[in-house]
């Protein structure tokens, strides 16, 4: 067996809550796997289903929308 599977995750985070949450995780030095790439949006309502599909199509293993 090669290395354990590490999913690549695309995250759409709302500027006002989840993005601030990711900031707080940083300020609190909470360690998590470096597999997530964050795209900031002004509201999770801005996340078009197309964005999610595009993420998966481009090679992400999962897409995380938080807001």
């Amino acid at each position: 067996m090669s290395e354990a599977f590490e999913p690549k995750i695309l995250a759409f985070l709302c500027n006002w809550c989840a993005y601030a949450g990711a900031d707080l995780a940083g300020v609190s030095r909470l360690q998590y796997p470096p597999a997530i790439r964050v795209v900031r949006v002004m509201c999770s309502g801005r996340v078009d289903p197309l964005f999610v599909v595009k993420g998966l199509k481009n090679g992400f293993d999962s897409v995380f929308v938080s807001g």
Partner: protein
Amino acid sequence: MTAPSEYNRGFEHRAAIYIKFAQAVPLAYTIDRDLCIGCGLCEKVCLAEAIQYDEEPKKKELEAGAVVLAVGNDAFDPRGLDVYGYGEFPNVVTSMDFERILCATGPYRGHVHRPSDLKEPEKIAWLQCIGSRDTHECSHPYCSSVCCMYAIKEAVIAKEHSVHPLDTAIFYMDMRTYGKDFEKYYDRAREEEGVRFIRCRIHSVEEDRETNDLILRYADESGNMQVETFDMVVLSVGLKTPKRLVEVAKLLDIELDKDSFVETGAFTPVETSRKGVYVCGTFLEPKDIPCSVMEASAAACGAEEVLSDVRGTLVKEKTYPEETDVFSQEPRTGVFVCNCGINIAGYLDVPAVTEYARTLPGVVYAEHNLFTCSQDTQVMITEVIKREGLNRVVVASCTPKTHEPMFQETLRDAGLNKYLFEMANIRNQCSWVHSHDWDKATEKAKDLTRMAVARAQLIQVLPQPTVSVDHKALVIGGGVSGMTAALALADQGFHTYLVEQANELGGNALKLIHTWRGEEISGRIKEMVKQLKDHPLVDVYTGATIKEASGFIGNFETTITQNGSDIKLEHGAVIVAVGAEEYKPTEYLYGEDDRVLTALDLDSAISSKEERIAKAKTAVFIQCVGSREPERPYCSKVCCTHTMQSALQLKEMNPEMDIYVLYRDIRTYGQREELYRDARNRGVIFIRYDLEQKPEVKKNGDGISVRVKDPILGRDVEINSDFVVLASAIVPRDNSLLSEMFKLALNNEGFFLEAHPKLAPVESATAGILLAGMAHYPKPVEESIAQAKAAASRASVVLCKDELTIEGVISHVNELMCRGCGKCVEACPYGAIAVEEREDGKSTASVQGALCKGCGACAVACPTGAAALMHFTDDQVLTMVEAALAM
């Protein structure tokens, strides 16, 4: 060197150099001089040279025209009450300790553990009224107002955080969930979350020495002693004024009352005894966040009134160079990578990220800085922008939440539109969270920089147009709230229209006799009416109704109808203060027998000195008539206090009168508790009843018989009364028309909904429209006045401007692509989009920029792609998705 962390209440230790708490503003370190050994090494190692080790405290003198005291208060320290064992038994904690235990930044990172052995508790008890509603030495007689709600919240959250089913029990005397939507939270906690509520008196808390479990002894409602064991006990401690604030009051020469709270009046709820000094929050009386926030704005309003003549005189306007036209230019991107001292550079390869940035398409310049945010770097960036002809700037550093506005300012100083800026958050999302993996953190920082650069190629110049502001205000409703708001606005110099549907001003206050502190009401109302009529800046319209309304913040147009003719009013802000009304009961023989009165009926009977009241031998009050019922699941907030006032007044008139109060919970919150205590001392008898077993009221010869089950005796008692007073609910008026005209949301019960229950309690979700008084929720006179002043203050923020700047990040509808389906209108939470017929007969949607908050919901809802959110268009977002993995 370490000391117990104040923030985490001794559960953790901190160093001698520390940040006081995670949300501190500014998020800067401080040196604990008492703990410091004095080596001064910190000054030498600080790369930013931010430490001046020998710096001494300096005195600064400020000149001010008004002072606002928002100094807060302390939590009660239960160490003096030995029956609870706080400080002795490790698993007895205060509610403040428990807040830290529940918090993600707390000692256990939000996991629920008990201090003695870090075991996850299975049973937790909350004990209410610790240090409150207690006349014993070292406690306080008043109710601390906030503890019932926070205990329920802590119990619910503890259940959520607990890995296994957690049993939570709240031991209380009266459950005081009197605020807006509080009762529903209580109902949900009890019925859906399974929080147990036990009405009792606590005898003692003892510890099992082997297990550190706690043995709780209490007397239940029927007086029987009960024993139950818990893993943890939380003491719901109240609020108190500490000595240091008593000293502050002395220093400022303002008067405190016997409980050491600032003395104010119901009609001047935020004014201290010293002119020009205002107060808000818990230094006034224990209170929750919404009321504190309201008072904060009310205090600001006081200061605005006295300072209105000099408004804006100290403001210096900043000027910017003219914006460079970059429309036809190819993107020339500059990338600035921040070391953040060692915050980034200590965990990933900053030079490598910078080198990598230079290779990215569109990048013509890249460098790294020790601190990209420092003042000298800003000057340098401005020079580089000019020298290199940059027209896009990317900073790879920390979070745009804190630093984007500052860098945008630098762009403006360099003559670039502020929207030509992008950030990559390589500190909070890389170095700080992948601190043990240099390679992966570096790789991710490169990815984030590449994503930001890709986006930078597509972002555009955005305009920030302005709209003019009409400096006049409209106040709807001429009750005590509306009158207060109108006077406060006019006293600040804003022309105000006051519209009242009745033929006279005054509203519900005309029917009230006294405030709970005994201040006479009607005389004061007459005085206010006179002030309004004489005020050159107020136009009063009585007997008038709202017919039509249109416009947006700064530019409203409202048509009112008075005496059959229409009047058009133009104004920049609206305050909705339409009040509420007394529920006319359909129960307990009301309307069938004239000896059954409502609270307001009794007030007018007392005012007109009716003999049947003065000479009565027995009176019965029934509380919660129409409130806290399935069809009206809210507490009307004022009725318990009003009943105490009435009962005391009746005792004053006739000390021999037997008075019974039938209640579910007595909710004389804050210092109103004093009235409850007085009523009991004067012999008023209180009998509790349950919603399931309401009292029965029957005609019985000359009197009325009231039957109720006494929970202490466990038996029915029958009282023959001369009259019965129903503490009937406060119900909203029919607000549907106003809600439609001004696009204002109502809650389930029909009260106007605020923009945020805690942080924006007087704003509606529609910009420029404020709420005040009972239209928002039932409340007593003093709170209505505070909210009205708060609304006037919030309105003045708009009214004092000559123009409003419309942000660039808003939606835009492309008319050519729009087919007028209206999906965007439905999606918009702010009422910022409307479909209108154009001159050519086609219907298309258009965005009112002043109302748009830039959420982009319309862009997602739009089936044709006509609606787009500027700065976050599909291609601007998707290019980041594509760049994220494109290696």
